[in-house]
């Protein structure tokens, strides 16, 4: 009986640590394509983050924070950029959950990303925290 306990304990701890140290699969072709698309778009979004026109939202998306700081003529373009970025981000969260065999993880993946985007935002960028916008 003691041996059984020992085997049980060893197996449990092994499986726990395997999960704790495990990696999520993020190398599928779909995820790669989304990353590349977002990376290219970032060249256009970065100045908008810096100027405060666009902020990092609390739900894992990006949002128009201050429409006034975008010239009227460019607002359509900025809105299109935001929509495209958010479409890619949603697809990214969905694809990561799917690539790991757990489509139901999508919401958790989104939440994790939301926290990391906010945490990793560069100095000067605006992030949504506790319902309001805060400058990093």
């Amino acid at each position, binding site marked *: 009986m003691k041996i059984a306990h020992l*085997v*049980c304990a060893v197996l449990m701890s092994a499986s*726990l640590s395997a999960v704790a140290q*495990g990696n999520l699969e*993020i190398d599928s072709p779909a995820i790669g394509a989304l990353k590349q698309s977002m990376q290219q778009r970032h*060249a*256009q979004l970065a100045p908008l983050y810096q100027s405060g026109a666009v902020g990092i939202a609390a739900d894992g998306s990006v949002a128009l924070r201050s429409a006034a700081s975008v010239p009227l003529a460019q607002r359509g373009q900025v809105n299109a950029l935001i929509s495209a970025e958010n479409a890619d981000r949603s697809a990214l969260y969905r694809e990561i959950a799917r690539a790991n065999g757990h489509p139901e993880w999508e919401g958790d993946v989104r939440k994790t990303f939301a926290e990391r985007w906010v945490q990793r935002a560069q100095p000067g960028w605006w992030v949504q925290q506790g319902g309001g916008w805060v400058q990093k």
Partner: protein
Amino acid sequence: MSPNVRKLMLGVLVLTASACVTINIYFPAAAAEKAADRIIDEVWQLRDGASAPARQPAEGKKP
């Protein structure tokens, strides 16, 4: 070891193995954070010293 003890051990092993499978159903938060950071690094080009202008990549290109 008596056959009864063996049966018991086998039962415990089977239960443990199924417990392992169950554990995997929970969202691996730490692994997800690591994955998120890796993707954010790439999308925002925060590491990868090779891709030069990390801070203001669009500065010279577009208004």
